[in-house]
């Protein structure tokens, strides 16, 4: 924890002109201290999340996307720790807050939906008692109020409130994920962080859940950070898209634009790695090679060893994020197009 928490955060936020932002992440870095060396899993990530906005974060396993989420939610445990940067949520720097201070924020202002609902829900407690726990922890003690609100959120996600009495094993995978989302909405948070909530579901259930998340979001106005390895999943739902590679943001822009005209060779490669069920059948190649070992990241651009458009410069120096038609792209191919970000 090298960054000093709390100091003149308001001033920083004002200077960055992010008054509409519910969350401001600046130069956030996370390192894992391991036997074989220090692994920088998240490297100077910056972005703003507006009120009611839906940001998708995509990348392959090991790119740091889940670590980034955990850092934002202050859920990192050793050997991982934030080594730099700030996470300003509703005007407060979350980095360095004590557990007690965080407890008052969690569930109430910010909630997290984990990847595996089976592991996130307590198997020996009914849904109702788990909902009640979360509410009591935040000072809601009136039984009628707890029961009413629990039934309300469960109905919101399309589950019959009769299931409040059910235990997690009595629900299907889709229903468990839905009840996790219901629980996240109990105290009407401003931000819901989701870590691959649909990865255990079938396409039909997945699609239905995504549509429901989007519908609830439009209705209730919370912001969403949605992490997934499946780019096509967020293509119709997120407002903006962050493509991460080896701990860094490689491309960041409006979702539609990123899909219609991907700029970074990695994003292009990812797009071309998806077979389609429509249109002509074309041979695909995927991206050769595998992501770098972050304990020994390659010099220069981290994608250079796998990049089909690699230049000499890419192997020597690290590219910045460059502006290209409203998208930020970390690639020297676009170095001439726009000024470097920040």
């Amino acid at each position: 924890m090298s960054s000093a928490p709390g100091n003149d955060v308001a001033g920083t936020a004002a200077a960055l002109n992010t008054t509409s932002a519910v969350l401001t992440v600046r130069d956030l870095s996370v390192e894992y201290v391991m036997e074989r060396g220090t692994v920088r899993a998240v490297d100077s990530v910056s972005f703003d999340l507006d009120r009611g906005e839906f940001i998708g974060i995509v990348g392959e396993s090991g790119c740091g996307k889940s670590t980034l989420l955990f850092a934002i939610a202050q859920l990192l445990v050793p050997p991982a720790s934030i080594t730099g940067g700030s996470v300003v949520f509703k005007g407060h720097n979350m980095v360095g807050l004590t557990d007690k201070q965080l407890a008052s924020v969690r569930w109430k202002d910010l909630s997290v939906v984990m990847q595996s609902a089976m592991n996130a829900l307590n198997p020996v407690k009914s849904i109702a008692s788990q909902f009640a726990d979360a509410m009591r922890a935040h000072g809601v003690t009136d039984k009628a109020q707890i029961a009413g609100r629990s039934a309300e959120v469960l109905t919101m996600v399309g589950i019959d409130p009769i299931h409040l009495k059910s235990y997690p094993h009595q629900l299907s995978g889709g229903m468990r994920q839905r009840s996790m989302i219901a629980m996240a909405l109990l105290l009407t948070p401003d931000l819901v962080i989701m870590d691959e909530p649909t990865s255990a579901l079938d396409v039909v259930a997945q699609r239905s859940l995504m549509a429901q998340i989007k519908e609830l979001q439009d209705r209730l106005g919370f912001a969403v950070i949605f992490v997934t390895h499946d780019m096509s999943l967020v293509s119709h739902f997120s407002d903006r898209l962050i493509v991460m590679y080896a701990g860094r943001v490689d491309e960041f822009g409006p979702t539609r634009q990123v899909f219609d005209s991907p700029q970074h060779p990695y994003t292009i490669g990812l797009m071309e790695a998806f077979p389609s069920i429509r249109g002509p059948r074309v041979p695909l190649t995927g991206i050769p090679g595998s992501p770098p070992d972050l304990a020994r990241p390659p010099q220069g651009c981290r994608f250079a060893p796998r990049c089909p458009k690699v230049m000499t410069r890419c192997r020597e120096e690290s590219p910045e994020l460059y502006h290209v038609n409203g998208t930020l792209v970390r690639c020297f191919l676009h170095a001439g197009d726009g000024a470097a970000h920040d």
Partner: protein
Amino acid sequence: MTELSRGATPGPPNRKATLPEAPLPPATSPSPSTADEPTVATGTRLLRTEGLTKHFHIGRALSRHRHYLHAVDDLDISIGERQIVAVAGESGSGKSTLARLLAKLYKPTSGEIYFQGKPLSAVRSRRDVLRYRGEVPMVFQDPFASFNPVFRVSHGVMRCLKLHRGELSAGQRHEEAERVFEAVGLTPAADVLQRFPHELSGGQRQRVGFAQALALRPKLILADEPVSMLDVSIRIGLLNLMAQLRDERGVSILYITHDIASARYVADRLIIMYAGRVAEQGPTEEVLANPRHPYTQLLLSAVPDPRAPLGVGAETDRGEPPRVIDPTPGCRFRWRCPLAIDECHQVTPELSQLAPDHDAACHVARSGAEVRAFG
């Protein structure tokens, strides 16, 4: 070194592992069935099932009320030579049970499997079972759990060779192991063979799985979700490998998946399963272009496709799993089907041919009415 060592892509100079993850097929390589005509769809039949059924007993062994989970019910499917047949469906549709029945890991409750014309129930002696397992090996879903971490990856493939191909000497076994490793794009093979599973990436481990299967000189590989645990950029490499094994070595593959787009990419034939039964089957392109079963239509409408505009229709379906414990007669999709008629609640629909080589099990489709349930 064989002609197959072309898989090597130049590794970066300063990377620890210089193994190619996804060797690019050469420009001239046969692409995964881009041709429109059914290339090998009418090949000789390799395997066929007749009324294949597997029920699992639920509850305590001595309880008075016996309940049965109908994992696979009355399945008639066939796999041709040099054919990739994809079985797609949601979890619980019975597709993994099917693979295990074909691998002879489960005994069917009723029905029969014919491999090269001979009934599998007659394959009983240890020698015959061993030979069958060599001809029909399995590749598993989880490359992180299916290798013993304390042995080098050579252990598995050498054991396969020793067990199934006893005629080879120790030296020949080693040569053969290197040959199959190179065939699946793991080069330099001698080096990769000496590694431990944790030193390989998921994609490489799945290639080891295919190499092990290949060492047995298989006729049919049962691949149960072989790419679902891999990153998207790696998956295509494995799918290309499957197509290459079919095209260059004449191996048939049963490709079990929940990802219809990848099934379309490699498979010659597509079988859509729902609640233990075949909902629809036929040549892949034909089924995808003219889906006749409402469930196939629902499945297709739910596939996220960034290149397509947002479709409507699937939102009303929650994707709740069907009841397969002691099911009553009738179509198992009827609770979710917007087109269900009275007959669907009483009579289980049989597969019937609706177009050449294209079957669906749907009363409404069979009546000749146009089925447009979803999408």
